[in-house]
């Protein structure tokens, strides 16, 4: 008879207990946040583990007193446009750098990579003055345009394009295909996973963006969810129940993308580490 390892040794049980405890800490704020949507402000702070009956009131407050639909729409428009423009521009650049290598372009690529180390706060001060001079303050363009080009995404996609064989490009050229046709018709469709990771990465960083919108958004009409949450939190009397609704709603799109595309999500977030 072959030896069978005991399925329930004591150290193993302790290990699982430890992991469960850690997972509980990890997940508790989410659970408490969802619960908070059903409570009155006082109960949110003091905490209770029993769902309350205030959900409709809180939902109503978030939507009518705090204009959740507008802020959600603003966040969504800004994130989606950033992804569409950003992925296009960065994928083109990644493809250009990888498939049409030249000394001059390698030099440009090097300069782009150098900016990866620039701390955000140092770029944002002069950038703010530029955006103000362009009269773009308090517009979607102010939040979208400066963050469409991403050196990291170009770097990430360039590595992905290494897999796309040059022979296919040459064969297509012989058949009379233009370079844009080859790019859009053959290179992009073969890179779905990489593009998805890049899109997720750009979506999340724009969806969660805080410092830049904080200084460029001046009115409610362009306000995004992180700013809406922050201003609710700094109100004299904090409407905790409604706030919990907005916090939860702000997490849902990211959660959905994460659960639906875990592999690409982690690849995008963790980047090109192997």
């Amino acid at each position, binding site marked *: 008879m072959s030896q069978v390892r005991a399925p329930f040794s004591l150290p193993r049980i302790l290990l699982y207990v430890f992991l469960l405890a850690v997972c509980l800490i990890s997940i508790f704020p989410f659970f*408490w946040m969802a619960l908070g949507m059903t409570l009155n402000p006082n109960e949110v702070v003091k905490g209770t583990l029993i769902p309350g009956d205030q959900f409709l009131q809180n939902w109503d407050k978030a939507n009518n007193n705090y204009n959740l639909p507008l802020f959600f729409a603003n966040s969504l428009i800004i994130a989606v446009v950033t992804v569409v423009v950003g992925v296009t521009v960065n994928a*083109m650049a990644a493809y*250009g750098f990888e498939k049409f290598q030249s000394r001059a372009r390698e030099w440009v690529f090097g300069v782009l990579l150098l900016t990866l180390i*620039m701390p955000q*706060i140092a770029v944002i001060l002069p950038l703010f003055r530029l955006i103000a001079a362009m009269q773009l303050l308090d517009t979607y363009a102010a939040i979208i345009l400066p963050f469409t080009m991403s050196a990291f995404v170009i770097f990430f996609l360039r590595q992905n394009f290494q897999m796309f064989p040059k022979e296919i490009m040459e064969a297509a050229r012989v058949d009379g295909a233009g370079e844009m046709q080859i790019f859009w018709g053959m290179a992009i469709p073969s890179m779905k996973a990489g593009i998805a990771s890049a899109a997720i990465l750009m979506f999340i960083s724009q969806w969660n963006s805080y*410092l830049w919108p904080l200084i460029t958004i001046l009115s409610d009409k362009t306000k995004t969810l992180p700013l809406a949450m922050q201003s609710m939190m700094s109100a004299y009397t904090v409407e905790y129940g409604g706030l919990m609704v907005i916090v939860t709603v702000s997490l849902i799109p990211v959660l959905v993308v994460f659960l639906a595309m875990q592999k690409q999500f982690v690849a995008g977030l963790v980047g090109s580490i192997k």
Partner: protein
Amino acid sequence: MRSRGAFERYLNRSGWIFVAPAVALFAVFMAYPILSSLYLVTRKWKGLTDSFIGLGNFVRMFKDSLFWDSLGHNFILMVVQVPVMIALSLLFAVILHHGVRKFRGAFRLILFLPAITSLVAYSILFRILLQTNGLANNIMLDAGLLTQPIAWLNDPFWANVTIMVALTWRWTGYNMIFFLVGLQNIDPEIYEAAEVDGAPKVMQFFRITLPLLLPVILFSLVTSTSGMLQLFDEPNILTNQGGPANATMTAALYIYRQAFVLSSDFGYATSMSYVIVLLAGVLAIIQIRVLGGRNK
């Protein structure tokens, strides 16, 4: 048939067409602002007008104790929180990789979950949870772990602890993913050989796992440190604008407040941001050394 030279020119032109949009955006929204900051640092703002001040901003900076205190807070948070977080990430990664088989995927997913929350959202959640009359204190009081509530957000010491706890919650699972990838790349035969030689598990960890993961650990260390250097969202929201009494004021938050809240002295704010650039540059050099060493 096209000549060789004409084809080369065609390829070169195509290459530029592909990179042009990104390079144009880069020039306008990155290169130009960075270059224009060289002008900003020589100016002093008074209200809406500005005048030449030469190196005066830097002289002022050296005498500004609140700026250096803020930078000091960055370093304290960095030195305490980063090692704790990395040790925890490593522990969870090793447990998930070597210790358990059942529910491994579920554990990994749950531990990673905090990494998807926005910094604003989790800062708000922790700020509510950690109010003096809030849930965290109530649970610990009920469990008998505390005899009186801790002023998490209103005491200078505890406010720093709060930020560290929150950061650890947010980033441990994220770093764990790097370590899990690193562990997967270690050949299991190495452990089998160690088993045969009768090496105890603890020795295997220190002699095999740790040295082989060192590049990934250093990578996490450098990225976390660089993140800590730029810490902004947490002290602004979680501890309410660097409070109490500037105890959690960080350099980035102080710079932001100089430019947009207390005054609009862009010259002075930009000058201070140069210190962060300098420190980030040093970190980057370390990072390149580390990663460069890895690829050899």
